[in-house]
């Protein structure tokens, strides 16, 4: 898939064309979703939303509110984008100064955003049966994949892991989008790697799996790498790293990846945040 960021240079004497927006957007709502998470809904112009892809992110200029003075922009995955309604959604967990300031935003306030940035999820034409495996806030990162699968008419199974059934966020959202849900929790003792492996192996044997998607967790990464290798199933992983510019200029955000027999440093903001699951390295 070609990135929206690396479109071939066209007019203006072979020069690159601006394709990343930096805009102040109006806040439509900013409400708690459950104990730990907030959902931020912004009014966004159509031309920005038309460029968005599931798996991409924005770099948000968190406001100086509530006594916080965040300086660098904070990266946030796109949680949802709706060109027809003119809405851009983020789901975030209050972690520190930046997200505490974000949590103060009220309807009508403005938030400066830059994006969309990075490479989104790849969904090849012949990938019909998609399986997403994620835990905790990782489910939010993968939520737009459910939206995209739904728009493309693909079958999606979401294996959602959490400490406790109450924390199984995004499940209703996945269900609304027609995904099949397999919940696993620590409290019910169903989230162990052995159990997960068994659940996934049954799928591979049953209806079959064309591609895996995951994010964040080392344990899930190594499990899916193993199953993927065993059955030749491709997969992708969304990763995070501390960032500054978000555009690919500063090289703050690198992680190591396997390319053949070499290890290469790739920028999460630019070559990622979505990467080939077999190239990702456990950390």
């Amino acid at each position: 898939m070609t990135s929206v960021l690396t479109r071939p240079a066209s007019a203006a004497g072979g020069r690159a064309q601006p394709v990343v927006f930096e805009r102040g957007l109006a806040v439509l709502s900013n409400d708690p979703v459950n104990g730990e998470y907030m959902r931020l809904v912004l009014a966004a112009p159509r031309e920005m939303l038309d460029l968005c892809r599931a798996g991409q992110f924005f770099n948000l200029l968190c406001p100086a509110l509530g006594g916080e003075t965040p300086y660098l922009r904070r990266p946030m995955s796109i949680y949802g984008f709706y060109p027809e309604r003119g809405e851009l959604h983020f789901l975030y967990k209050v972690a520190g100064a930046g997200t505490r300031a974000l949590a103060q935003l009220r309807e009508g306030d403005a938030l400066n955003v830059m994006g969309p940035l990075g490479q989104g999820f790849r969904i090849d034409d012949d990938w019909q049966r998609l399986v997403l495996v994620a835990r905790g806030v990782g489910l939010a990162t993968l939520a737009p994949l459910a939206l995209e699968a739904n728009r493309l008419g693909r079958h999606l199974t979401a294996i959602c892991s959490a400490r406790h059934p109450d924390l199984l966020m995004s499940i209703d959202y996945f269900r609304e989008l027609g995904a099949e849900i397999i919940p696993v929790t620590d409290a019910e003792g169903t989230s162990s790697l052995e159990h997960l492996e068994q659940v996934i192996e049954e799928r591979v044997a049953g209806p079959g799996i064309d591609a895996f998607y995951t994010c964040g967790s080392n344990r899930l990464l190594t499990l899916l790498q193993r199953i993927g290798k065993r059955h030749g199933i491709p997969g992708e992983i969304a990763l995070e790293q501390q960032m500054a510019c978000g555009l690919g200029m500063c090289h703050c955000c690198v992680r190591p990846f396997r390319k053949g027999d070499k290890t290469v440093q790739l920028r999460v903001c630019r070559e990622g945040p979505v990467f080939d699951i077999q190239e990702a390295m456990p950390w």
Partner: protein
Amino acid sequence: MVDLSVDIAGLTLKNPIMPASGTFSEELAEVFDIECLGAHVTKTITRGLRDGNPTPRVCEVGSSMLNSIGIPSKGVSAFLDKVVPFYRAYETPLVVSISGNTADEFARLCSEVTVEGVAAIEVNISCPNIEEDGKAFAIRPSSTYDVMRKLRAATHLPLWAKLTPNTGETPEVARAAQEGGADALVVANTLLAMAIDIRTRRPKLGNLMGGLSGPSLKPIALRMAYQCAKSTTIPVIGCGGISTAEDVIEFLIAGATAVQVGTATFINPTAMVTVIAELERYLEREKLSSVRDLIGTLIDEEQKEGVVFMEAAP
């Protein structure tokens, strides 16, 4: 119409605003048309391949940042094949930043990047010199002079020497750079700094220490730019914490001929575009026909040399 153009050792820039090395690359062209800038300055490269430092490579400190990127480099041939051609589509002068671990390696790279399409070479002499106890070339006047002599012999292009704030001898280093053959001075690079996570008692950067940039660096860089302008006769390019037109004007009054904008671009990717427009509006308001009328206009009442060049807090 006000005239924003400035002259840096024979190279005319359409305006005095350019990016700082390491905070700019081809990707910024995806946000705005970078033809509006006074010059394009590339990330420092070295001759060979380098991975750079461990992560985390960045952290926030108050309203500024620390970085320990190191100098990851794909090497000189990748640079000449991929990066230089990209900028040929622009008329804006291309300034290439280079570095080396030894003076000879540095000089060799200097001649290798002396190619068509490159308008000037910025020599990042703020990097460690492994032949001399690992201290940056630009910490001491003698190592500054020696490396500049070799670099001078390696190219006919204008040489801009990028100085470090990690020296206690700014005027002496500036003079040594000029005597060694620098055509202009870039003042300055980041200041060595540190941050600790008090919960984990670990350094916040993977490399233990890193360079401070952003607004906190501005008064230090401004002081150095002033001292360099006073102690040499070559143009000074101010750099450090610049994010507004007011910051630019302050550096110009202190004696800088042009400026570089670094970290501000991370916060506002279009910061340089805004700064150029506001600088123009300021000159119109002040009824100045040329930005050059601002340069070195500080009313410093002929301070004694001892005050101008002191390297200790009063």
